[in-house]
Structures are given as C-alpha cells and as structure tokens.
C-alpha cells in the first residue's frame, strides 16, 4: 500500500477572501500527499534528515491532528479526541508511528480535511472562538491563514525529507 498522487489545483489568481483561503488550504493539503505518494510505510516512517526526528508519516498524522484541533475543537467547539492523542506522549501524532496502518492514516487525513472544508464553507470568517492557548480569542480568518502557513512550513520539511529518501524534488 502507498499513498496515491492526488489531483492538485492551483489557486485562482483572483477571487473573494474565503474562496482564496480555501483554495490555498486545499493546495497545501494536496502538496503534503504528493510528497508522501508512492513511498512504502518504511520510507514514510524514516527520519531522513537527522538530527531532526521528523518523518513524512509523522507530518501527515500531525496535520490531521492540527486540522481537528483548530477547526473542530477550538473553532466549532466539538468535543473530538484525535485518534493520535496519547496521555503518555503529547507528540504521539509525530512519534508513535506504528499505532495506525497507512490506509487509516490516509483516510483519516482526507476525512478531517472534508470536515474542515465544511466548517469553513458554513461559517463567517469574522466568527470568534475561545482558544485555551495564550491567545484566548481567535477568529476563523486567523485559523485559516494559520493553517495555510503551518501546512506550507511542514511541506518545506517534507520537501527535504522526500529528497533525502529518493531524490524526488518539486513544488
């Protein structure tokens, strides 16, 4: 089993705010899958740029958790518990890579992306939510831009992890 290369759509050059935010988010969700596509579980679980402990599989699990956390838990106020959460390790999403098979990781990633998309579609960008973090109050606009930059930064990690695994490069 390996992850399939998804279709990735370039964001339009113009358009209203929410449409642009949604398009860039989708672009980076697809980019992360592209960086993982075609590799074995073993390759995806390899920390290929030591001393960093990051792996492609860990990034995929981490971004699933990040989407669940910001869109579902903080913004929508849903009481979700991520399948990657663990009492023993706050970074189990990044570290406990044997806890789920690849097909589950991929399916869960896609499902969580769908849920986030639906929340953005049906909510106002000015809508506020309480965060338990240091900021206390955030709006949906902030969540969207934060997710874009967090995806993009981790996709930068993914670029180098992938290049060190099989030499593949590209946007």
């Amino acid at each position, binding site marked *: 089993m390996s992850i399939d290369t998804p279709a990735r759509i370039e*964001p*339009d*050059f*113009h*358009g209203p*705010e929410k449409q*642009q*935010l949604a398009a*860039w988010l989708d*672009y*980076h969700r697809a980019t992360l899958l592209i960086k993982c596509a075609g590799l074995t579980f073993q390759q995806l679980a390899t920390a290929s*740029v030591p*001393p*960093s402990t*990051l792996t492609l599989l860990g990034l995929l699990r981490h971004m699933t958790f990040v989407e669940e956390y910001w869109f579902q838990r903080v913004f929508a106020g849903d009481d979700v518990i991520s399948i990657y959460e663990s009492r023993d390790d706050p970074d189990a999403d990044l570290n406990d890579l044997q806890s789920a098979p690849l097909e589950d990781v991929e399916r869960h990633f896609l499902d969580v992306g769908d849920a986030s998309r639906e929340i953005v579609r049906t909510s106002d*960008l000015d809508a*506020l939510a309480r*965060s338990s973090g240091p*900021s*206390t*109050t*955030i*709006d949906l*606009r*902030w969540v969207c*831009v934060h997710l*874009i*930059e*967090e*995806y*993009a*930064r*981790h*996709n*930068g*990690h*993914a*670029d*180098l992890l992938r*290049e*060190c695994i099989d*030499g593949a*490069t590209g946007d």
Partner: protein
Amino acid sequence: MEKPDRREPPFVGDERELLEGFLDYYRDTLLLKCAGLSDEQLRTRGVEPSTLTLLGLVRHMTSVEQRWFQQALLGRDVKFVYGGARNREKEFHDVLGESSGRVERNFLDVCSESRIIARAHDLEELARSSNPDERVTLRWIYLHMIEEYARHCGHADLLRERLDGETGD
C-alpha cells in the same frame, strides 16, 4: 545577521491586518533562522543532496519580493538585485563570494519597499504586469508570499538544525 524583533500576527482582526501581520512574521522568521551564524555556515549546503543554503534562501526571497510587489503589482521594469528569473539558479547557488551583511541589507531594503507599495493598493486590485502569469490580485500576492516564505522557512528549519542543532518556530 541580527536577531529581528518578531511580532505575533493579531489573533482577531480584519483581512489586511492579518495578511500584513503574517507576512512580516515570516520575513522575520527567515532572518531568525540565519541569526548568529557565520558567513561560512550560512553558505553551507547543510542537507545534501539538496543544494539549498540559508544565504541562498534569503537571496531568493529578495527576488520573490521584487517580482511580486515591484514587477507584477506595479508593472515596473525591475532591476533585480540578483538578476531575476533568468538567474534563478544563481540567486540560490552563487553564494561563495557573498557576505551576509550585503544580503541582509538588500533583503531589508526590498521588504521595506514591498510594504510601501502594498499599502497604496487595495486587496482586490489587479496587478498591472503585462505578463498573464502575473495578473493576480494583491490578495493572491499576500497569500502566495506567506505560503512561499513558510515553505522556505521549513527548509531553513532543517538547514539550521543540521548546522548547530537549533530548532524552534
């Protein structure tokens, strides 16, 4: 390079404030990743086989700022600090004789200019460039700049960790 005084973007605010806030956050993040290293470290290909270097990334983002704010948005005939699109490889790789002081100065100057240019335009405004690949809105430019900076800062994270073990946002 000096450590910049980086500020968190506002958690609640209008579109413009947030986009400006995140873009400045990432301009500073790239400088933070370079701060305190020697010129030789900044020129080192830390994650081979990748040919990326921290100094090459700062040079590249200087060109990217010029491309989108000066060339695309204003439709200006730009004199690129590092030669522009025809020299893409050189701006990344031609770092041997390069000093971090010069690169930092160019970067800060170009970012200041981008800020001044952006302020005079509406987010819905279309770029004046005659190149159809650059007929984007200022909103698109902001979002693209943020994601491009963030992605290269991801590269910078791993380069820096290799060079001296330092990590962090």
